[in-house]
């Protein structure tokens, strides 16, 4: 679980990719994602693959991305086998598998180089309703906390003799009740406290809250935008 999760969790770094405006990072990921969907021949898919690898090298996140690739590769093997046995040619099946890996990796790339803070700024820039953005931000912020709570509850119940690994499947599912009940209650209580804290700090007073930082495109960002759009368009045009 942790293995896979590490492929999607933000990693601090000062690489040239990390320094980009988050909207540009999003643009890059969307371009890679779209290319993977549009392009059909093996040759072009390999180019996309190489592009992703170049980005991951520049962003110094190759190790993490590799984990995503392995996870995706496992899945795509399954896709490959199913397609092949469904009657499609081997080459076609390989294309589909590669496409899947590229889609997953381009998504992973975005989350690895974009901090949750930047993510929030992007969502706000899209003028999404503040409540929605805030709900998203809070969920991501509290995931590690909820995980800690789960571990602590498991510790407490293990100390009372609960053995999660033993017993037939039905018994083992029942054993999760002493874990889930306290967890759910804790998180419901937590939500209540969060709501109180939000209210007391004036959440919702204004429909147009101001912001600590504003997103501004630097020259660097503009150059990267131009380069990627040109490359993106070229690949598509060349494909036809």
């Amino acid at each position, binding site marked *: 679980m942790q293995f896979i999760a590490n492929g999607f969790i933000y990693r601090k770094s000062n690489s040239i990719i990390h320094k980009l405006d988050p909207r540009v990072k999003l643009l890059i990921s969307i371009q890679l994602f779209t290319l993977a969907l549009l392009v059909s021949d093996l040759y072009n898919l390999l180019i996309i693959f190489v592009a992703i690898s170049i980005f991951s090298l520049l962003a110094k996140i190759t190790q993490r991305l590799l984990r995503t690739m392995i996870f995706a590769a496992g899945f795509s093997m399954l896709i490959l086998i199913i397609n092949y046995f469904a009657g499609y040619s081997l080459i076609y099946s390989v294309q589909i598998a590669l496409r899947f890996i590229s889609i997953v990796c381009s998504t992973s790339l975005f989350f690895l180089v974009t901090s949750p803070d930047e993510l929030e700024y992007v969502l706000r820039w899209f003028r999404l309703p503040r409540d929605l953005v805030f709900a998203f931000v809070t969920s991501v912020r509290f995931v590690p906390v909820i995980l800690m709570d789960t571990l602590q509850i498991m510790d407490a119940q293990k100390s009372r003799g609960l053995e999660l690994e033993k017993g037939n499947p039905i018994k083992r599912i029942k054993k999760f009740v002493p874990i889930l009940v306290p967890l759910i209650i804790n998180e419901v209580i937590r939500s209540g*406290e969060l709501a109180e804290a939000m209210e007391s700090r*004036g959440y919702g*007073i204004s429909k147009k809250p101001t*912001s600590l930082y504003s997103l501004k495109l630097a020259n660097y960002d503009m150059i990267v935008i131009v380069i990627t759009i040109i490359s993106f368009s070229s690949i598509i045009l060349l494909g036809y």
Partner: protein
Amino acid sequence: MSVKDLIRFNDFSFKYNSRNDKVLENINLSINSNEITVLAGPTGCGKSTLLRAIVGLIPNMYEGEYTGEVIVDGIKIKDAEIKEIAKRVGFVFQNPENQIFMFSVERDIAFGLENLSLEQEIIKKRINEIMETLNITHLAKKAPHELSDGQKQRTALAGVLAMQPKILILDEPTSLLDPKTATEFMELMNKLCKEKGMSIIIVEHRLDLVLKYADKLIILSNGKIISNDTPENVFDYKKDVIPELSIPFSTKLYRELANNSMKFSKPVTGVEDMIKEVKK
């Protein structure tokens, strides 16, 4: 410059819709600026409800039967907009984890200021000032899971103080801290109160840690105020004290000795006073 009656309760009673009896009954109370008020009492006595009534969570978030008045800085809480209250009252809850919403310390401190629609320049200035005051400037870009409990608490405090409230409410601030950190925290509260003239209300069980800083001690029991006076007067040996209250040892010793005919110039609420009295 001290302001009297910064907070006033006039015959205030409250019953939650979800419960059968009143949680607070006939509360009459006056709290001034430039003072640290400690609120104590057994669990379930209504302390949290009282705090919620000051900050407006009652009636805005909790419904029930609301009788009487709560007036804060001249505003009647019952009819006031959250906006008006949030500008004046800051609430630091017991668990700092549940008050830090954002991914970095400085973004979280900015939260309240963004809600108040302050200009970016002012937001930046206030954040820098408060981080300076609380000694957390080096933590500005850190994520909440990278902070210790004490640091989380100071972050939560910073987020509230940045809004420059006149009144600061703290719910059991020492419960997660070790005694040394707790003492440092109380020193900070004392400094804030004297330098900025704030009115600080602290709910606490651990009277031994906070009593020496209290200008006023209010004891609540079963929804009613049973004491509201300076700590010396509350613990005067001639007066009874409910057994659930954790009285500091120096005070217990004073009461025991005074009840056995030893003479004291005034009631003892701390270690230094006790030492002075015995040496006389």
